[in-house]
């Protein structure tokens, strides 16, 4: 192991784990959170993954979307350390947001009952992302929390998550919104021919599809009228939080060709957003292979020796596959970005101690010498 802490958190207050689905992002987020808590910090970890995996590993009740405290007993955590875990419920968070920002009780009721809102808040991709960020703001205002670890939904694109506040604002503040809510006043000017044409086609679309949604969309948008400032304010805060120097963005991947492709896309997307990538964590790295010579020297039946040799060759092939994927990843990482590796446990962490062990065994993959030098 090169360093005691492969991921140096320093005075970071927020750790965002991003990455493609199926790479163990949730597990790694939990491990990092637990490790920080064992190190004495007060930590909240939030997952937005619909499956209750994280809570499972942490020994918490699945299906409960309130903040739950994880027992650190027996893990050697100092007094005052704390770990809490939360599973995000996007719909409930959105409802809360509406309640907070709605100018009046009747406006609130109108929104909550609106057909578009009910579907939008439950089904529209992107709302979960936005709500995760909203919840994050809420957590970050709790001064008793030293570090927040955020596990993000498995996204096709990193932009989906980090860009959510901006997109939400764009939707609510767009010309479209003004246009749709303007009703008859459109005819009195202030709108271009293109807007008028757009309105005409929308009306046609509405009629042809049978959705009859235009009225609902208008009502929805109009009901947000008095809330725009509140939303804009939250979104600006979220943007600032994500870009805060005390926020660390960690991209989680595995050393498999397809995941590496996705990781490289994430890296490009982050840089387009102007976000600093703090570290890349490669999960489920194979352990170094045992020595082939040891087989010949061993006092074992010849048939078993042949099997050992075959098994070694098999795993060597997998390791070769892994190391070419890793080489490609390394070549795509911006200079100075830390590349860390988490070992393959061979099974999912079942207990808290497994998670703690996973975090302890994180190590830095040296960019020059390759991982051969490690361990």
């Amino acid at each position, binding site marked *: 192991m090169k360093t005691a802490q492969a991921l140096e958190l320093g005075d970071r207050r927020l750790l965002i784990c991003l990455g493609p689905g199926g790479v163990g992002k949730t597990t790694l987020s939990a491990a990092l959170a637990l490790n920080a808590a064992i190190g004495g910090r007060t930590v909240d970890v939030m997952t937005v993954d619909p*499956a209750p995996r994280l809570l499972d590993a942490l020994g918490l009740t699945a299906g409960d979307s309130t903040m739950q405290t994880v027992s650190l007993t027996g893990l050697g955590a100092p007094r005052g350390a704390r770990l809490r875990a939360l599973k995000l419920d996007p719909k409930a968070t959105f409802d809360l947001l509406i309640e907070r920002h709605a100018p009046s009780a009747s406006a609130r009721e109108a929104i909550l009952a609106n057909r578009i809102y009910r579907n939008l808040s439950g089904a*529209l991709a992107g709302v979960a992302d936005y709500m995760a960020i909203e919840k994050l703001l809420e957590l970050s205002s709790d001064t008793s929390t030293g570090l927040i670890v955020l596990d993000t939904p498995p996204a096709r694109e990193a932009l989906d998550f980090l860009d959510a506040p901006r997109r939400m604002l764009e939707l609510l503040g767009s010309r*479209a919104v003004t246009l749709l809510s303007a009703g008859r006043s459109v005819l009195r000017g202030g709108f271009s021919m293109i807007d008028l044409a757009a309105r005409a086609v929308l009306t046609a679309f509405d009629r042809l599809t049978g959705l009859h949604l235009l009225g609902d969309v208008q009502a929805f948008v109009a009901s947000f009228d008095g809330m725009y400032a509140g939303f804009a304010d939250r979104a600006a805060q979220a943007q600032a939080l994500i870009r805060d120097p005390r926020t660390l963005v960690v991209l989680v991947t595995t050393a498999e060709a397809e995941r590496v492709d996705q990781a490289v896309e994430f890296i490009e997307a982050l840089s387009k957003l102007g976000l600093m990538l703090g570290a890349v964590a490669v999960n489920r790295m194979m352990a170094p292979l045992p020595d082939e010579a040891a087989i010949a020297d061993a006092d074992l039946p010849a048939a078993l020796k042949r*099997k050992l040799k075959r*098994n070694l060759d098999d795993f060597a*092939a*997998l390791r070769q596959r892994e190391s070419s994927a890793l080489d490609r990843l390394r070549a795509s990482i911006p200079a100075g970005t830390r590349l860390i590796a988490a070992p393959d446990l061979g*099974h999912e962490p079942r207990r808290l101690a497994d998670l703690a062990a996973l975090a302890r065994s994180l190590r830095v993959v040296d960019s020059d010498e390759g991982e051969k030098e490690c361990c």
Partner: protein
Amino acid sequence: MTLPRLIFVTGKGGTGKSTVSAALATALARRRPTTLADLDGRHAAIRLVGAVAHDTGAAKKNGAKNSTESAAALDVITITPHGELETFIERIVPLRAVSRRMLQSRTFGYVTTALPGLEAFLVLERLRQLAGQAALKDRFVAIDAPATGHALELLAVAGGIRNLAPAGTLNRLSSAVEEFLIDRNRFGVIVTVTPEEFALREALEAAGELRDRLNIGCVGAVLNCVPPALFTAAEIAKLRRHEGHARLADRRHESAEFARHARQALERAGIAVAELPMLYAATLGAREVATLSRRLAIEMIIQ
């Protein structure tokens, strides 16, 4: 396994959806002309069969024939939500100038974004059409679908749309799409699973959702990456003093054991299981997919 015209391959992230759908399409293509469709937006399955991805439009025009030996009758297409929306708008607004204007309008973009599930629904409608064409021409369609969570949301969209649109084109389409999804001859799901606890759990949950909530047929599970057994428990016991090799042997043994357990659990849940071996190869490309496809043909009795 009785195969429907269109097979929708989903599973937990990392369980080999793309590899399995590529192998499945390759296996099917040896019997009947087959279309491999990428719904994932990443073209991974298409790359694995050694073809080049085309977008929906291009594929429609060119037929996008693939050239690998194993897949003489295999063509590939990609299906994107936005592409389907374009096709739909062009269909309901036959005047090209108008439909193009709609699609270019930012306003329209916002509204369609706000219409929950519209694009997803149109993707399902496209699958229905593909299956219909496949039935007419005695073809198969294999879909490299998104991971389980997204896939189940996608499949549940048809009912939602019918509730949203009380009349009109979409309402008519939604009934047709719902009928299609529950028709065992036209549509079925294959769930990919690896010998890992969470992958198994997710596969069982997905199969349960399909059966109980959506009434959609689950063709079976493909248990992927099963290590060919090599060591007996007695042999592993002998390795105690050879730590590194013992760990490696143990690893393989445990994985093989879990695969056995997974198979039993799936079968107990009434899910047919086809097994694919772990390929200990330094690369995973067209050749490996061809190997897997032959095995899959035997396991699934593709005739």
